[in-house]
């Protein structure tokens, strides 16, 4: 049996003889591998972006919205009737076992002033649990306490965008800002969150105690009412249980009879975003599959050239057989040739794929992510293609009759 280094040497020489042909054959694999890597990078990039957004909003989220008003049979949409109260929020937190945190939200847009700077932003009245619900860490300072919520203290946590616009380089903690002309003490700064899945700047906000928002800033004719309740379930598996428990609990609290409709709505945010993530994964798979087809076509190109090569070198095969080459010596020679073509194609394909997805990210602004797994996958796939499509020509060569082969012109 021939030893492998010698077989590799023979194959490399054969490939060098037809440089142009070898290069063109390799091109098929280069395009295939490059396409697989670039497509997977685009798909993975999209999934990762969605995942990041899910993480930025907070995971396992449910939103409870007040009910719809019905005026003369015209239903006005969720949130038009002020039916949720602070009590509902506290009850959800206390009585629903599948819920980890529930935070009320009573918000509105207000003008904020610090020194000579002013800025219009979303002021959110809530409880300290909001930071847990949204997985939102503090960058500096402290959060407000339960006591400060009870006493409607005039304290606030600033989002990064607000800090950037009001305080140019000054440490905001301890400073006094005016919201709708009411002085508030800045006690903390929220960490940077970035955009929400729908493109909102989540950092353009101020958090204050919910009671302060109700009594001092956004008073309504329904005292104690809140706009929404944000709920975090204990885990993804608990989302459905939490939804069911909240519906039952609020129906009970609002005295809604068996045949009456809910006067509130529960929305499952996480589920919506998971659906989007699923879609991105399906897209990745689809793109990868389409790209694999081009790799397959490249493989057929290799087989084609190897068959030509076997025919051209029939006499050489005959000589090798006459001096003692066995079945697998001949097969190995041609399989290694095909494998070399496909692996060289694989290496260049990786270069093209990685730089191509980098170019897409830089020029088109697409989110792309080249994973080590996709590189390994594409490279080993190109190797498998080489062996698979090299085998038939190699098999054909090994079955030649040495006498016929020697006579071949």
């Amino acid at each position, binding site marked *: *049996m*021939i*030893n492998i*280094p*010698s077989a590799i040497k023979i194959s490399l*020489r054969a490939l060098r*003889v037809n440089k142009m042909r070898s290069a063109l054959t390799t091109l098929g694999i280069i395009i295939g591998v490059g396409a697989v890597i670039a497509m997977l990078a685009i798909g993975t990039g999209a999934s990762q972006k969605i995942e990041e957004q899910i993480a930025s909003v907070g995971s396992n989220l449910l939103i409870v919205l007040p009910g719809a008003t019905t005026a003369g049979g015209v239903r006005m949409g969720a949130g038009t009737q002020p039916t949720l109260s602070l009590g509902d929020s506290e009850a959800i937190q206390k009585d629903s076992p599948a819920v980890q945190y529930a935070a009320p939200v009573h918000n509105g847009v207000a003008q904020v002033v610090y020194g000579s700077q002013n800025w219009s932003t979303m002021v959110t009245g809530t409880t300290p649990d909001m930071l847990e619900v949204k997985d939102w860490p503090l960058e500096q300072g402290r959060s407000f306490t339960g006591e400060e919520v009870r006493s409607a203290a005039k304290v606030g946590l600033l989002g990064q965008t607000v800090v950037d616009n009001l305080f140019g380089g000054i440490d905001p903690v301890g400073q006094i800002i005016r919201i709708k002309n009411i002085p508030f003490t800045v006690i903390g700064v929220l960490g940077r969150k970035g955009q929400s899945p729908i493109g909102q700047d989540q950092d353009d906000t101020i958090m204050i105690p919910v009671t302060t928002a109700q009594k001092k800033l956004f008073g309504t004719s329904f005292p104690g009412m809140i706009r929404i309740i944000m709920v975090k379930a204990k885990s993804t598996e608990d989302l459905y249980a939490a939804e069911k428990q909240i519906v039952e609990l609020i129906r009970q609290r609002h005295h809604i009879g068996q045949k009456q409709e809910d006067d509130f709505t529960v929305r499952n945010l996480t589920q919506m975003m998971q659906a989007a993530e699923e879609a991105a994964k399906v897209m990745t798979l689809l793109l990868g599959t389409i790209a694999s087809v081009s790799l397959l076509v490249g493989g057929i190109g290799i087989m084609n050239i190897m068959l030509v090569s076997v025919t051209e070198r029939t*006499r*050489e095969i*005959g*000589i*090798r*057989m*006459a*001096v*003692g*080459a*066995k*079945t697998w*010596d001949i097969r190995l020679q041609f399989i290694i040739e095909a494998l070399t073509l496909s692996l060289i194609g694989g290496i260049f394909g990786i270069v093209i794929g990685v730089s191509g997805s980098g170019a897409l990210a830089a020029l088109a602004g697409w989110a792309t992510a080249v994973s080590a797994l996709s590189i390994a996958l594409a490279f080993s796939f190109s190797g498998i293609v080489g062996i698979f499509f090299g085998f038939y020509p190699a098999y054909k060569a090994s079955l030649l009759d*040495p*006498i016929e082969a*020697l006579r071949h012109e």
Partner: protein
Amino acid sequence: MALIEVRGINKRYRMGDAEIGALNEVSLGIEKGEFVAIMGPSGSGKSTFMNIVGCLDKPTSGQYLLEGVDVGGLGRDELAEIRNKKLGFVFQGFNLLPRASALENVELPLLYNGLAAKERMKRSAEALVAVGLRGREKHHPNQLSGGQQQRVAIARALVNNAPIILADEPTGNLDTKTSAEIMELFVRLNVESNITVILVTHESGIAAYSKRIIRFLDGRVIGDASAATA
């Protein structure tokens, strides 16, 4: 025990409906160290006989014993191993690999019995020296004359220390002077190294270098005599 012994071998080919007998009941023995010429007109079966003796082909019926071993029952790879270890081929058209150097051509049989590269180089270089091609190791076949190419082919046949060299019209493509040189090389190998040489030719001048002449006609042996009497 004869080195080569064939007993009643037949070889038939099918060509369309007709069956052609290329060899009919051929029986003969060749001892170690003999120098045999096989003669006959084209179509007489001498090439078929050589292919069978060279383990490139199998008889339709009959027995072929090589060093007492019945070759008939062996498979493709076992025959390849016998060709590698026991037989050296020299062809009319040289059959060298055009893109390999002289040294690499000579090395070819060693490649298939798993020798280390260093040992292969050493033995190939020695074989080239033995056929008088010292200093031509790096030359490619197209840089060598016909006689030199045939010497490379002979070196390739020698390199694995095969006890038998089978030469099919080895001087067919060479001029008279070069033919004589090649034949003298065969004679020297036969005398000095006790290598058994079996040679197919239709030139009686070439056959005259041998010690024994076997004549074929229509698939049968019609004459077998020492060269002096033939």
